């Protein structure tokens, strides 16, 4: 099928010596693989900060009353935690790291369509992130609004909110530009013979995501600008005291932020759609159904934002319309799960670590999805909205979903990215602790929500105590697993065994280039023949 791969050693993208040396050879590089790694290192750092804030919150919640901090600190922690995790990690997440690194190789291109724009996106991303961090380090008081910046509290609070809002605004541009870049790359740079329906599913998921990034992000941009103007000049768009409407803010915010959930989860589903066929050594089941469901999710996802606002004040008609649309958008996700599981049927399964991440992804994603049905139905939504139930639900989706897929993807593509293999025994131990810890940490929150414990609560009634203790214990087990995983990955980048070109016997194009790939990816652009395809085993 593809052009024969030279066995002789090519200069890999890691060793490549360009115009610049040392650090500059990275931060001035327009190589999509180096940019992908730079995103990864930045995100890993922010992620660890976010995790520590999460652990501190959980420690505070181990007992009612004051444990280690006051209420204002707790409120600042969940705000900064949420802003970091959402705007700086899971929204850019998989597209920025694995999309950048793998997309061009998977479709047989030498780089993305606009390499310089790609580097610019990274700088914009870093600028936005640094602004967010500035809001914590300087000014009078750490932002305390929650990541949703709800009006009118967001212009009443005396804390240093503007840099955080501005940071989120800037981060949006990185997202828009990356989306644009990927759309053009996918349209224009697929290798000869790779028709749309021969494109790997990960590339399809990035394509769906890119359109959401491009079309939805401007909405949050303008909304954040309005909040800033409201805060500085009191323009009276959202402030009821000036005749504005705080519920309008919520509409604008969720018109972006619900599709943003799909920006997070679609690429995660894409990565899982790559891992499962490879480890089953089998053609993906229902390729076209998965593609169609990706597009359906990206499209219908625009019309369900109202499910975040069932108690805010809308007409009854609006409420049940949003409810029914929310149920409709659940179906394509279910279709994906059915197809993934069917792919395993009659496969030849190698239960190696990326596969373990993939099936644990399916498990936690199902729990997240089913709890989403509870939130989509009107009667039950009214009951559990804004309680710990919602906190459990979105951690199961964004952390269980995106996080597990991210770890799955990194264990899957690691040998390609670094040319070395991690220690598999440690990887499994880390995974086991992480998985058990994750369930212990978040499952009790479902229960707490059903008991009626509201979210964003610094203090709680004694009847919620036992479940909170369990949850905090879980956070430690999970953190321990995470530590093992990260140390293992870090150490193996230098000391791991040399990885072969195709350790998992995958069929997508990235497995046809050396590990790590050369700077230009392909010596000659591959060509897909009549019988070739990403899943032809």
């Amino acid at each position, binding site marked *: 099928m593809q052009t024969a791969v030279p066995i002789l050693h090519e200069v890999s993208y890691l060793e490549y010596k360009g115009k610049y040396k040392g650090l500059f050879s990275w931060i001035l590089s327009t190589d999509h693989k180096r940019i992908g790694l730079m995103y990864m290192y930045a995100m890993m750092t922010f992620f660890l900060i976010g995790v520590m804030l999460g652990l501190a919150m959980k420690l505070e919640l181990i007992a009612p009353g004051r444990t280690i901090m006051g209420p204002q600190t707790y409120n600042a922690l969940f705000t900064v935690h949420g802003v970091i995790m959402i705007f700086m990690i899971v929204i850019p997440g998989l597209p920025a790291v694995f999309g950048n690194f793998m997309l061009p190789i998977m479709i047989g291109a030498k780089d993305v369509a606009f390499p310089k724009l790609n580097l610019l996106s990274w700088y914009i991303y870093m600028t936005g992130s640094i602004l967010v961090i500035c809001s914590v380090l300087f000014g009078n008081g750490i932002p305390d609004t929650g990541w949703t910046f709800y009006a*009118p509290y967001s212009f009443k609070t005396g804390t240093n909110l503007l840099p955080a809002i501005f940071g989120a605004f800037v981060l949006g541009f990185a997202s828009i530009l990356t989306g644009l870049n990927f759309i053009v790359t996918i349209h224009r740079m697929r290798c000869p013979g790779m028709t749309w329906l021969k494109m790997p599913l990960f590339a399809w998921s990035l394509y769906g995501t890119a359109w959401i990034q491009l079309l939805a992000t401007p909405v949050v941009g303008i909304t954040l600008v309005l909040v800033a103007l409201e805060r500085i000049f009191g323009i009276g768009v959202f402030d009821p005291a000036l005749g504005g409407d705080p519920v309008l803010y919520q509409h604008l915010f969720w018109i972006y932020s619900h599709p943003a959930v799909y920006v997070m989860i679609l690429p995660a589903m894409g990565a899982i759609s790559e891992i499962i066929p490879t480890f089953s050594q*089998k053609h993906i089941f229902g390729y076209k159904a998965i593609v169609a469901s990706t597009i359906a999710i990206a499209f219908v996802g625009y019309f369900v934002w109202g499910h975040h606002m069932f108690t805010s004040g809308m007409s009854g008609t609006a409420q049940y319309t949003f*409810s029914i649309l929310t149920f*409709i958008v*659940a179906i394509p996700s279910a279709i994906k799960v*059915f197809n993934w*599981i069917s792919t395993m049927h*009659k496969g*030849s399964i190698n239960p190696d670590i990326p596969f373990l991440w993939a099936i644990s992804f399916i498990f936690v994603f199902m729990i997240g999805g089913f709890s989403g049905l509870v939130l989509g139905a009107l009667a039950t939504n009214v009951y559990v909205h804004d309680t710990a139930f919602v906190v459990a639900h979105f951690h199961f989706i964004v952390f269980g979903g995106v996080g597990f897929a991210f770890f799955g993807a990194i264990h899957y593509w690691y040998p390609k990215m670094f040319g070395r293999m991690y220690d598999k025994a440690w990887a499994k131990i880390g995974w086991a602790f992480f998985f058990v810890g994750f369930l212990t940490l978040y499952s009790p929150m479902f229960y707490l929500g059903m008991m009626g414990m509201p979210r964003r609560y610094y203090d709680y009634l004694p009847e919620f105590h036992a479940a909170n203790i369990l949850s905090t214990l879980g956070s430690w087990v999970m953190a321990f697993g995470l530590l093992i995983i990260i140390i293992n990955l870090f150490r193996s980048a230098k000391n791991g065994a040399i990885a072969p070109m195709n350790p998992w016997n995958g069929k997508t194009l990235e497995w046809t280039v050396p590990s790590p790939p050369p700077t230009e990816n392909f010596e000659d652009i591959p060509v897909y023949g009549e019988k070739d395809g990403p899943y032809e085993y």
Partner: protein
Amino acid sequence: MYILSNTVNASNFVSGVDKAFLLIMGISFVFLIGLTFTMLYFMYKYNNKKNPIATQIKGSNTLEVIWTVIPTILVLIMFYYGWAGWAPMRKAPKDTFNIKVTGRMWNYLFEYENGKKTDTLFVPMDKAVKLKLVSLDVIHGFFIPAFRIKEDVVPGREKMAWFIPQREGLFELFCTVYCGMNHSYMGSTVKVMPQPKFDAWYIDTIKHVSVAVDSPTATGQRIMKNIGCFACHTVDGTKLIGPTFKGIYGSKVVIQTNGQEHEVTADDAYIKRSIYDPNADIVKGFNKGLMQPYTGLLSEGDVQQITAYLKSLK
């Protein structure tokens, strides 16, 4: 779990909500367990040691149709139950017992039609109670888990919630929309009483919970405590959301009026203005818009009592 506990039928909405809950959870559990076991079984049965060669199957249109149609039907059933449990919440009957609920940082105030004001919600059993929800500052969330009702309390809008309490007893009430520092303390209690007991309480004319008045300043302190001034102010010198009251009376305060900074002495008039129109003069170093005007909530007499108490804080 509330769903299974003694709050069964604490209000007229409980059964509708819980039915939807159990239905969705039931279907979900069946699928979760079924799919998880299928996955584990495949992993065991088609392990590459047992099954070295995979059989290539690319898909099946029949299956795709089946697993699109069946979930669609199931979610529509879920939607229906969700809708059925919720629809009655939107429509209050004609003849209701009305209470006005005012949310502010960080407490709720309940006002009854005969002028009674309380910080605990008292309601008669088996009677439709209609709440008028208003907020004086930011958005709050009005949530009584045992009754399965929740409604956001949005400034600038008048929201409605209603229910029929069906069980005697005390139930928790929470604020669910994040509203600043003491959000988690913005709770209260609902007390449901049988009609005769409620009536006896209702016609009782002593408005607030009465406390023995033993010193001239105790009344002021009590008023402030009940209405929630101490959420933002202390008397021991620590600064919270607002300035401390320690030594405030007679001190020199630097304030900003329309952006102009100047100094005033905190006298009776100043304190009165600070309570009725707090955003006219802003104490330097604090933020505008946090303290809300107490006009209509505190009478001139109340303010005099408060001032007397503040005088005593040396």
